[in-house]
């Protein structure tokens, strides 16, 4: 379904790529894949990259609880201090809290992000995690992989691969911040 919006003089096209049901199914599948690959939930922790990744991490944690009956530790990570574009940025982005209230030493860390694009955020997140401890393994789960990688980074768990053009934008709505679940492709 396409929505046409006219904002100012530019034409914006919106297309829904995933709806609530599809997002729910994808997260269920990813959770099962995580449990399958790691042979259960022992020694796992989940860390979401702010903001979208944090909500997704919490949902995966809840699903693991439903399936395995195990409470895995869940944390949030803001990568601002590890970005590689600070010296060229003119305006600082607001920093959201990082909260990792457990040791990641020897743990299998499932790093969760909403949209994987250039891979630079994931690089920053991995550097940050290394300062928090020495995890046994870091695995990457993403809801959307939109291509255009600038670094050799590959997710272990991909919700949906959506080839995009660089001009397009992916907009993610999640219940936790906008009351509904939906992934939109925006073309200007």
């Amino acid at each position: 379904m396409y929505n046409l919006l006219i904002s100012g003089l530019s034409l914006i096209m919106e297309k829904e790529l995933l709806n609530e049901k599809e997002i729910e199914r994808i997260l269920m599948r990813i959770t099962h894949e995580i449990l399958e690959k790691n042979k259960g939930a022992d020694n796992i922790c989940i860390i979401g990259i702010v903001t979208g990744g944090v909500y997704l991490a919490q949902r995966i944690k809840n699903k693991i609880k439903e399936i395995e009956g195990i409470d895995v530790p869940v944390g949030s990570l803001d990568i601002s201090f590890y970005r590689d574009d600070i010296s060229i940025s003119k305006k600082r982005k607001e920093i959201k809290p990082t909260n990792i209230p457990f040791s990641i030493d020897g743990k299998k860390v499932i790093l969760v992000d909403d949209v994987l694009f250039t891979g630079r955020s994931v690089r920053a997140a991995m550097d940050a995690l290394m300062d928090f401890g020495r995890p046994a393994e870091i695995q990457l789960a993403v809801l959307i992989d939109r291509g255009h990688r600038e670094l050799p980074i590959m997710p272990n768990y991909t919700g949906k691969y959506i080839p995009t053009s660089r001009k397009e934008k992916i907009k993610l709505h999640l219940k936790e911040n906008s009351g509904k679940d939906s992934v939109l492709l925006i073309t200007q």
Partner: protein
Amino acid sequence: MKDLVSIKELSRRDIEEILNTTKAFKEVLGRDIKKVPTLRGKTAINLFFEPSTRTRTSFELAEKRLSLDVLNFSVSTSSVVKGETLYDTLKTIESYSVDYVIIRHSASGAAEFVANHTPASVINAGDGTNEHPTQALLDAFSILEVKGRLDNLKIAIVGDVIHSRVARSNLYLLSKFDTEIRFIGPSTLLPTEIPENVKFFYDLKEGLKNVDVVMLLRIQLERQKGAFIPSLKEYFHVWGVKKEVFRYLKQDAIIMHPGPMNRGVEISTEVADSPRSIILRQVTNGIATRMAVIYLLTPKE
């Protein structure tokens, strides 16, 4: 924002942004590895024309935690004693391609002068009796941490208000919030012009009634040109905050001091070491606040 020269020029929104960022850096200081690579490859210089240990070390630690390279330039070791002007000192350090200049100077307005004459980001670490913006920000952050808000409080600033750049910056900052500000002290140490949002008290007991926050100031003998108080002993007797204040202070009132404190002058040992005192928390928060300020400053577009 390129520089932080004064609180006066900041909006409430700017202050809230700094305080939110400070919270993020406070979390970093609680980690095992307290250093982040955020500003690696950049250089800061601490330009101190006035003696200071705690502010300088606080800035230095904040800079190192952000992975900055740090230069220290203090008056006793500098060419200022050989007669170099501030402008020439500045041009010299500019040739080192420094990105951040932290300046403390005995002349009010020195930080603004430096900010206007260098492309580097400048942070005022105290200029004469004018302002000490990072102290006011760390005080605000500490109040926010303990009280959960900066609005709807009664905050008393006690002591040597006229000589205090800390009091001035705090007044500017708290005035941006909907909070009651009181100045308490002998008339010789309070400003002659009364800002309209400040209540003046010339009696300690009267002034401290119902306050949520007591901010003490150091008696600045080095800035007093004249007889402002009869003697330190008498000052302590009349204006020193002693344990008797706990009889009439609010149960949850907190005691603050920017340091260095003079025990037995503006504060007694019992009060300084009481659980109501958050003086050491202020010191820790100073590092996080200064990290936040350095992080948020960006070169001119």
